[in-house]
């Protein structure tokens, strides 16, 4: 079925109807989550009790809005802290990996590349428990040996950051490598001929070229870190990131305050995601002109 080959009209309409139904299916859960954030009722369910903004700005129980719900605000802060660390680390290591795999040939390169892809096929829960088990036994051994405490190796934010970093780095490496592969090395050679140092050429020529990929992978890393659940669940200590807090609240029984948080999350992540895509395509277009 392609546009240049005629098909019966009926088949065409059936196909279109299926596509339409699919997109409704895709949009439905997100739409209801957003709509019920404005329902003037203590349950995010039917019937519709009228429009309210109390779930965002309310200050009186039971209508305590997101912006006044301390547990949620604190966990947003925790998530942001984790996300910035994860994104920074992942982009730094990802950039190194890109240079390593694109610029260097060495024995075992294919094997190392395959190892780098492994985190993609390890389920998040397993990644979480393996890091949990390893760091705990390390902490036990160190504490037995030295008699000091190693709290950083117990469940907590450091482990959450390391756990998320362990698989998000693969994504960052792939995105940045793809961009570096398109780079024309003669530009760097020209800089060297003009008297630049090796590091100067990389800083002035190569890194600016990589910038769109670096920004895009930083944004995607932040998004992935913010919404990660499986790995985080196993490594979390007393400070819980947003998804864990929301999950706990959801298990206790949901109120529209969760809808309000979700709405904010949807808006922010859709905006960030679109931005990262636009940034990448715009740069590409400018270069192809």
């Amino acid at each position: 079925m392609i546009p240049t080959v005629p098909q019966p009209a009926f088949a065409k309409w059936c196909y279109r109807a299926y596509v339409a139904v699919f997109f409704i299916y895709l949009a439905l859960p997100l739409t209801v989550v957003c709509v019920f954030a404005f329902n003037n009722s203590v349950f995010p369910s039917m019937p519709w009790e009228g429009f309210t903004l109390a779930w965002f700005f309310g200050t009186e129980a039971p209508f305590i809005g997101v912006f006044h719900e301390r547990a949620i605000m604190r966990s947003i802060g925790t998530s942001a802290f984790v996300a910035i660390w994860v994104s920074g680390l992942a982009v730094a290591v990802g950039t190194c990996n890109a240079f390593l795999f694109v610029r260097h040939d060495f024995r075992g390169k294919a094997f190392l590349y395959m190892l780098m892809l492994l985190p993609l096929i390890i389920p998040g829960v397993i990644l979480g428990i393996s890091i949990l088990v390893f760091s705990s036994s390390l902490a036990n051994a160190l504490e037995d040996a030295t008699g000091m405490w190693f709290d950083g190796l117990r469940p907590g934010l450091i482990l959450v950051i390391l756990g998320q970093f362990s698989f998000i780095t693969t994504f960052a490496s792939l995105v940045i490598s793809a961009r570096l592969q398109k780079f024309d090395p003669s530009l760097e050679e020209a800089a060297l001929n003009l008297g630049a140092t090796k590091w100067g050429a990389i800083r002035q020529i190569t890194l600016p070229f990589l910038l769109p990929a670096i920004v895009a992978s930083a944004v995607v890393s932040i998004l992935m870190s913010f919404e990660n659940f499986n790995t985080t669940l196993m490594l979390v200590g007393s400070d819980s990131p947003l998804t864990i807090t929301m999950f706990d609240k959801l298990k206790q029984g949901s109120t529209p305050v969760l809808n309000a948080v979700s709405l904010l999350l949807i808006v922010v992540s859709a905006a960030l995601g679109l931005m990262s895509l636009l940034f990448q395509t715009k740069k590409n277009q400018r270069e192809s002109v």
Partner: protein
Amino acid sequence: MASDTSRLGFYLLLAPILLWLVVLIILPHIGLFIVSISERVGPRAYEIGLDNYATFFNEPLYWRTFARTAIMSMIATLLTLVLGFPIAYYIAKLTRGRTKTTLFLMCMIPFWVSELVRTFGWMILLRETGVISNTLQYLGLVAGPVEMLYNDAAIMVGLVYTSILFMVVPLVTTLDSLDDSLIEAGYDLGGTNVSIMREIVIPHAMPGIVSGCIVVFMLSLGNYLTPILLGGKDSLWFTGMIYTQFITRFNWELGSAFGFLLLVLSSLVVFAGLKLSRQSLTETMGRT
């Protein structure tokens, strides 16, 4: 020439990746395996043995949950492929320009939203006081409230929903690279819709199909939120059991054995998928 500095640069680039992979991936998984083959014989005293794995095979609840998780994940993968393929084909072949970009972006947006939010949306839709139940009552199709949450069908809806984008995106990418003239040639040579699909489109899309299936299967197998929230208390999912052993029961040895079994299963499926389609991990995953 400047081989000394470039060697130094090489090792400086090699250090972070080795540190990352050895400390966060390789050693933890070796550790996981070691814990899974140790038996507690006294306080802080362990012996090596396969007791934890024996427990798994002797307790029907454990291995049945394991099998159930695997089978449900396979069904979810198949469903996702069947439902997602026409969409990917539509986006790749039947739309152009701006429509194509818009549809593709519409597919991507739910993927950026947290899985928790998506699952929450399904809870609002499917529960007894939910939107669908109320709509059906309003239309007079049912007499009283219907509970659609907390069963396997709900889990399936949720699993397909969370993972369909990981199927559609690689499919669109591979189908995009199929030249329309090949399909036209197929029609010119007297091919029917079915035979062209089978002989031209599907073989060409195979890399996308395989990488989509691998990712979807893995995501379903390792999913925790969807089965727990949509399946209710009685629904059993293997990741839920791992969580129980680790966090509730504090039996890390058995939990590690469970984790290792799940890892083996998912690796086997990935390996089988790659072998069947004669592809390597590098080319399949590197594409995404």
